[in-house]
């Protein structure tokens, strides 16, 4: 989130993707930074997924990712 905050400060729009348990951490950090970066959340957990499952996760979230980058 610090990376996106800094990149946005440099004028580059950004979005981060995290798994669901990060929602509250992201909110806390966003409140503390006084800046609400665009963030999207996937199902948890991630690290034990098969390639095929990861691909489905990415496909499911892709439209929202694009929306977060476009005006």
């Amino acid at each position: 989130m610090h990376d996106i905050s800094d990149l946005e400060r440099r004028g580059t729009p950004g979005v981060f993707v995290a798994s669901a348990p990060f929602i509250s951490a992201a909110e806390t950090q966003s409140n503390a930074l006084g800046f609400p970066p665009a963030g999207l959340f996937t199902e948890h957990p991630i690290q034990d997924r098969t390639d095929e499952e990861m691909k489905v996760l990415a496909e499911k979230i892709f439209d929202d990712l694009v929306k977060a980058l476009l005006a």
Partner: protein
Amino acid sequence: MGNNRPKLANGFVAFVKKDCPTCELIVPVLEHLTESQVLRTIFTQDDPSFPNLPITSDDTSLEVSFLHEIETVPTLLKIQDGVEVDRTVGWSQETWKAFLGIDNLGPGNIRPYSPGCGSLSVDPDLQGILQKKYGSGVASREVVFASAEDEFEAMYDRGWSDGLPLIPPTIERVKAMLAGSERRPDEVIAVVPPNLVDLTVEKVAINAVMAGCKPEYLPVVITALETACTDQFNMHGLLATTMPVGPVIFINGPIRKSIGMNSGMNLLGQGNRANSTIGRAVQLTIRNVGGGRPGEVDRATHGSPAKYGLCFAEDEEGSPWPSYAQDLGFSANQNTVTLFPGEGPRMIVDQLSRSPDELARSLAKGIIGNIHPKLVMGFDAILIIGPEHASRFAEAGWTKDQVNEEIINHSIRETDELIRGADGISEGLPEVFAGSTLPKLRPGGGLIILHGGGAAGLFSATIGGWITGDKGSIYQTREITL
């Protein structure tokens, strides 16, 4: 936020404190008025259980008392549509009867009159705290920074800075700044370009705090902004032009000294708080309130360090001549601010001229270089004559008018040298001007002469102007309103 008083229920409300003998005295009356449902609420300032009645309301925070400007207890307010329409102060049987519109105040055997006591909300020891807590008295939005935001970074992040650090405009600082002017915070003093936004004294004060001004500079900043936002000065044009110009501000009159401005050594340079921050406050206000930001409406090709704010004072005390303001008909006791649409300053060296005529020629040569040596008449100039140069003229008995006239005379050019193509340079006047002469500076106003600078140095400084006249900007002087 203009009126931030909490709304009250319609009817009558009372303010009391236990520590007041008058309030103690009238407890039976309050009981009667509660039972007969004449009173809606009794706000108590020091003891939530006094008087021990169902309509007693805890105001030990003093918020309601403070915001309703209760100065004495007991006080009765009459509330209609949530706001006060009348009040009576202290205890008087007859007044209360008339005020409440009733004949019976209950027990008839208490003292019919007692003046009451001071309200806790006006206790001098508590004033600062209450003022800070409830008495914002400001109309501007409060911006609350997040816990991990660095306050200085937070101001950069919001785009408020000209690139240099800003002083955080806290309510306390802004209020202290507002005390520097007699004008009301909500007075609209100008409409600021480019977004044509109403500019209040309060917004000027906020930007003046950020710029680093002291409260006593505020009248100067306000008058400078009033001047900048006139049609004649055309601040919008100055912002939008690709040329590196901004409002160059100079001050005349006693305020120069009282606020500690520099008119001597290094007057155009760093080191003096008033010189450094007044011009910056003007520029920050235009940036933040008007929306005039570099890269947006501000299209300057190169810009100039002077665009951070260029402000100085004329050296009147050391001058052999009347001040610029006096030349315009102001008295020595009047304070004025002049705005000139100009670039950064540039020096003119002449360490050898002994006669005034030589020196006038030499200074004219220096000014001819402004903008472009082949472009004439369209651009005015300031000449800040240094004390050593000024004394050359003064010793010879030259008046300022004479110096001005001679410099303009010596700036006269053969137009054959100025037309397009002359000297192997395309830039220049159209062919139709050939075969004549023209001065660099328009006679009758093209040159402003000021006196200023350090005692040593056979130099003067010039500030080149932007396009003069209706198509550009016309420099302006105003008396400073305190």
